[in-house]
């Protein structure tokens, strides 16, 4: 059945033109023209035109393709009759297999892969933090990277200026970031929706600009180097393999704690606020307080990720904390599925890995990534693992 047009000009010739593949492709190609030159814009136009047309066709036939696939599946399972084990044993087996693959990575992966895996781990913690704010509580935060930056710089400064080690800096830095979460939340929470998004975006930029321009304190764009890696029992964690396990511990800790909080009355209150703020205050939730907790709890994890990032890189500079970074983290959450903890892990891994895998095709990398996300939003708007009621249950 066709949906009724939302727009009463939906069938006008102008509408049809502005929504035609050729117009969309032309428009985007023109936007690219000043940056990439005529040749690239031309290629882009052709690629986009083909992609959008294909997408149209595909969308028209999406139902049929799905039907075909399911009948194929029936056909195959009818012939082969593989006895799939019970779903519970299957999921245990799958978990076991996955943990072996993850835990053994340093033994079979080369340094490049381990490096990306470490980065994935840091982003998983970050994205889980943002998921608390955006996914559970429904507050759009476009400046989340600010907390990541404050965490990273806190450790960098504490370590290089005062010589404080990793384990002492960690709680100090994370506390500072949580506090900054509260400080941002207090004025920002008076605002709703788009306004909140803009204020948080501004906060992100302010933090970056301060780091960039306060030369005497942060060394400005040059960044801070010579940050000490962490020690455990007197052993320095500086080799990649060691750092990998080190990160895994923090990822597990984050997932464990966030899951438990999400499955408590606190998590339920957050989801209620996301679902309907007036109703949630009318059943006795102090919405201001709980939004504040959400902001601060999210910031806490971003701070932790920042400290780990600084310890891993042994160098921080404002370049790592741009607005694009906030967008990337948000994409991880949306791709994985708002409010879904396993989904967000997957989203973070995919969005760290994918650009690396597409490195060969430099120019079209972002394009492929973008079209991938667009496709996802068309065919699966709830994200990879979201949906079925986004609320969290243990």
């Amino acid at each position: 059945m066709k949906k009724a047009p939302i727009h009463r000009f939906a069938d006008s010739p102008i509408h049809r033109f502005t929504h035609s593949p050729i117009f969309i492709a032309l428009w985007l190609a023109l936007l690219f023209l000043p940056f990439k030159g005529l040749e690239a814009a031309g290629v882009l136009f052709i690629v986009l035109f083909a992609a959008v047309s294909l997408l149209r066709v595909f969308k028209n036939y999406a139902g049929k393709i799905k039907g075909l696939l399911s009948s194929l599946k029936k056909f195959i399972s009818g012939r082969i009759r593989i006895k799939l084990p019970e779903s519970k044993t299957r999921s245990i087996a799958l978990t076991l297999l996955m943990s072996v693959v993850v835990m053994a990575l340093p033994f079979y992966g080369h340094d490049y892969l381990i490096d990306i895996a470490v980065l994935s781990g840091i982003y998983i913690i970050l994205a889980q933090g943002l998921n608390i704010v955006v996914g559970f509580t429904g507050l759009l935060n476009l400046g989340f990277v600010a907390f990541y930056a404050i965490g990273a710089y806190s450790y960098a400064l504490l370590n290089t200026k005062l010589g404080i080690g990793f384990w002492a800096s960690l709680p100090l830095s994370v506390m500072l970031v949580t506090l900054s979460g509260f400080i941002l939340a207090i004025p920002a929470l008076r605002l709703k929706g788009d306004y909140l998004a803009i204020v948080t975006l501004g906060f992100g930029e302010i933090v970056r600009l301060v780091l960039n321009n306060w030369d005497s304190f942060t060394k400005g764009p040059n960044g801070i180097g010579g940050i000490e890696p962490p020690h455990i029992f007197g052993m320095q964690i500086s080799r990649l393999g060691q750092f990998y396990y080190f990160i895994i511990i923090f990822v597990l800790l984050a997932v464990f704690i966030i899951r438990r909080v999400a499955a408590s009355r606190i998590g339920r209150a957050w989801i209620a606020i996301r679902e309907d703020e007036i109703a949630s205050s009318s059943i006795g939730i102090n919405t201001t307080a709980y939004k504040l907790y959400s902001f601060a709890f999210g910031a806490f994890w971003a701070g932790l990720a920042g400290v780990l990032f600084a310890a891993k890189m042994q160098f921080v500079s404002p370049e790592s904390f741009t607005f694009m970074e906030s967008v990337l983290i948000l994409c991880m959450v949306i791709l994985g599925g708002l409010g879904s903890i396993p989904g967000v892990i997957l989203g973070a891994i995919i969005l760290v890995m994918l650009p690396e895998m597409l490195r060969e095709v430099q120019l079209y990398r972002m394009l492929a990534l973008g079209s991938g996300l667009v496709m996802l939003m068309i065919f699966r708007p709830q994200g990879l693992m979201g949906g079925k009621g986004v609320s969290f249950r243990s």
Partner: protein
Amino acid sequence: MYLLEVRDLTKHFGGIRAIEEVRFRVKEGSIMSIIGPNGAGKTTLFNCLTGITRPTKGAISFFDREITRLGRDSIVKLGVARTFQNIRLFKEMTVIENVMVSQHCRTQSGFLSAIIRSSSFRNEEKTIREKALEYLELVGLEAYSDTIAGSLPYGSQKRLEIARAIATEPRLILLDEPTAGMNPQETGEMMGLIKKLQELGKTIILIEHDMKVVMGISENIVVLDHGVKIAEGTPSEIKSNSMVIEAYLGKEH
């Protein structure tokens, strides 16, 4: 003993006089109805009572406590719960989660006990779940506890809203058009449910358009018209009040 006392309550939206100097009192354990034509200010009155809108003037006291300027959550904590004219469920949560989250203001586990799953946390969670099932049974939704709330049929959504209100353990329940859009059988069931709430010791104020419901269960009726209280009395008094007939019933006869 009066549970609720509203004195000279006034609410203006710019030039619109939604409520004008309304005063009434509600006895503990009674059922009161507020009636009046569309736009009379009934929902606005509920919004003032629950802290959703701030009155322009006047005072509301609940259990001898001034609640006029309290925050919504504090009012709920004191024992005032409500349902909404346009249903406001937590649509993506399950039915039971809707009722569980509504016990928020009667529970207190914090971050730490949630993370370490202390025994007090586990006990509290268990009680929350048991009570939620109990409330669902009361409204007849126990079979749907794991259904996504947004996918329930309309009548069940209205009943779930009532379960959610009860879960806050209120003394006073405000129901905004609980039978709107229901067929006669559902309306009858809803009347039964409201009476059951009264038996449980709750005081009830309902906004209602269905005269059978209003006359059938309320002890006291307040009639609003253009924000002004034009009459108050028992069902038989209201039925014979000429001003009411003119302003409200008159249109239907």
